[in-house]
């Protein structure tokens, strides 16, 4: 089947990436790769939620932020080791995704997008104002939280790689599974799916929670890496936007689309953002318009040959 090709390629690349740091890769490149891995991870999560079901989530950063804060608080106030804290971040995000997902996933189209955006923005505002309002010293509001110093970049390189493999792997497994068929059916024709026996709400919520868990985990990892977080940083809607665009570019709903899209845009950002900060975003805007008008399936998705359905 045509999936063997990209899968084999991906595995090969991963194996190569496992050993490249030892070949004397520069610190800059290690950091760049780690950044790319984590963006692939984030985009992959968004893709699990939105790419498959067609419900465009504009609040994904909410879970990333929750994960960041849970991890930061556990590490600073509870002195809990990093890995446990990050996993806790993922778990809390996943748990919160349930009461948020259940009502919102019943909404259609634009309303789901607005509701999820409202959720993420509300989280940001709450974390900014909570301490002041309730008069405690817990979330630290706009002052932010400083985490303990972390290990060198290589550590995050490998964690990023692991997460990327996990997310891509899970997407791959989902795609060919009963669950994956349910999600795709929902995207194509939700009512018909429901009438064919698909428990649409359950499937949507499950995808949403899986995505939220990993986003929370990644949030925790990046909080540790950044060493300092504020609500504005980790609940930044631009993070969601990046996830959306990377998915679009690579191909919504495909397994390797996020890999291609995230890699391309992260590198583009690296090249542009120092000298031409606004240009990156303007280009992203044009990419979006271009893709919608010319190549709606993204780079990977458009490789579906006419008349035959290839599963990528």
């Amino acid at each position, binding site marked *: 089947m045509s999936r063997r090709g990209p899968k084999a390629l991906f595995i090969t690349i991963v194996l190569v990436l496992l050993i490249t740091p030892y070949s004397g890769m520069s610190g800059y490149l290690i950091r760049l790769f780690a950044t790319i891995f984590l963006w692939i991870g984030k985009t992959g999560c968004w893709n699990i939620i939105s790419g498959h079901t067609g419900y465009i989530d504009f609040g994904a950063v909410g879970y990333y932020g929750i994960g960041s804060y849970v991890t930061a608080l556990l590490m600073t106030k509870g002195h809990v080791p990093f890995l446990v804290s990050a996993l806790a971040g993922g778990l809390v995000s996943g748990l919160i995704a349930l009461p948020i997902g259940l009502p919102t996933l019943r909404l259609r*189209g634009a309303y789901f997008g607005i509701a999820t955006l*409202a*959720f993420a*923005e*509300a989280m940001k505002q709450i974390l900014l104002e909570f301490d002041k309002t309730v008069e405690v010293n817990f979330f630290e509001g706009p002052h932010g939280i400083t985490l303990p110093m972390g290990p060198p970049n290589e550590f995050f390189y490998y964690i990023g790689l692991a997460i990327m493999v996990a997310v891509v792997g899970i997407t791959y497994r989902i795609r060919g599974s009963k669950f994956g068929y349910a999600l795709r059916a929902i995207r194509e024709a939700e009512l018909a799916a429901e009438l064919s026996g698909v428990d649409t709400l359950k499937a949507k919520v499950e995808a949403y929670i899986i995505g939220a868990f990993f986003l929370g985990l990644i949030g925790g990892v990046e909080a540790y890496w950044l060493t300092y977080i504020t609500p504005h940083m980790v609940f930044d809607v631009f993070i969601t936007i990046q996830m*959306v665009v990377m998915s679009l570019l690579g191909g919504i709903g495909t397994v390797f689309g996020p890999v291609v899209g995230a890699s391309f845009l992260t590198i583009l950002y690296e090249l542009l953002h120092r000298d031409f900060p606004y240009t990156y975003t*303007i280009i992203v805007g044009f990419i979006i318009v271009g893709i919608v*008008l010319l190549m709606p399936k993204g780079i990977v998705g458009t490789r579906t040959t006419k008349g035959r359905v290839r599963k990528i």
Partner: protein
Amino acid sequence: MLLFLQSLLNGILLGGIYASYSAGFSLIFGVMGVVNIFHGEMVMLGAFITYWMFTLFHIDPFLTIPFSALSLFIFGYLVQRFVINRVVEAPPMISYILTFGFHLIIAYTALWVWTADFRTVTTGYSGLNADIGGIIIPYARFVTFVLALIVVAGLYLLLNRSEVGRAIQATAQDKEMARLMGVNIHRIYAITFGMGAAITGIAGSMLSTYFIVFPQMGLPYTIIAFCVVVLGGMGYIPGALWGGMILGVVQSLTATYLSAGLSGAFTFILLFIMLIVRPAGIVGKGIVE
């Protein structure tokens, strides 16, 4: 008690302002089903047109309104005609991704060209207030409020009494039927978008007299327009007034009695609840997909 009344009045004035720039958003969604994510950028463009005309040519802000209305109408018309019309038949997701792309392009190009500096339009009357029994009513806001009512009423009348308006309504209600009756759907869409843009531009021009003008101001306006229109009912023009008032009053009261920052959180929580409990809006006349 005085504090409450002042807060309430502030909220109502604010609400009228919200309504003025949300009506266009509701119109576009109601007729075409397009959620226009660069809506806030049209407010921004209107504000900047006024800013430049005021700063460079010393034209009074309220006199720049026709110019900004016309410019935005043309802009909206062209965008719809040449770009958005191509995706109007596609699933809604496509149109909001597309409009989102435009948001990035417009906002960041403006940022690049005009820099991030904050600007204000300060006229002779900018700071003047009326004082009625201890309650302060800023003139500029009050005039804007009245203008907002006029604009919304005008839009409503246009839609119901003019031929173009009726063609628009027909298209909104039943596209195929309208087409069969000889209506050029794509032209109507372009006109509608132009109208929505023009109204929003007018609002932007008026706002420049007391809100800060800067290229990134757009997104919060888009978000507030979402909120207003969900509260009042998507696609239902008078609903923009209801939604605006409710939002304005809620924000004003939470800012006065709780904290300014929390009023932001409240807005989003209110929006979230409305979407789940009553997506058709307070009066229940909104379009639910």
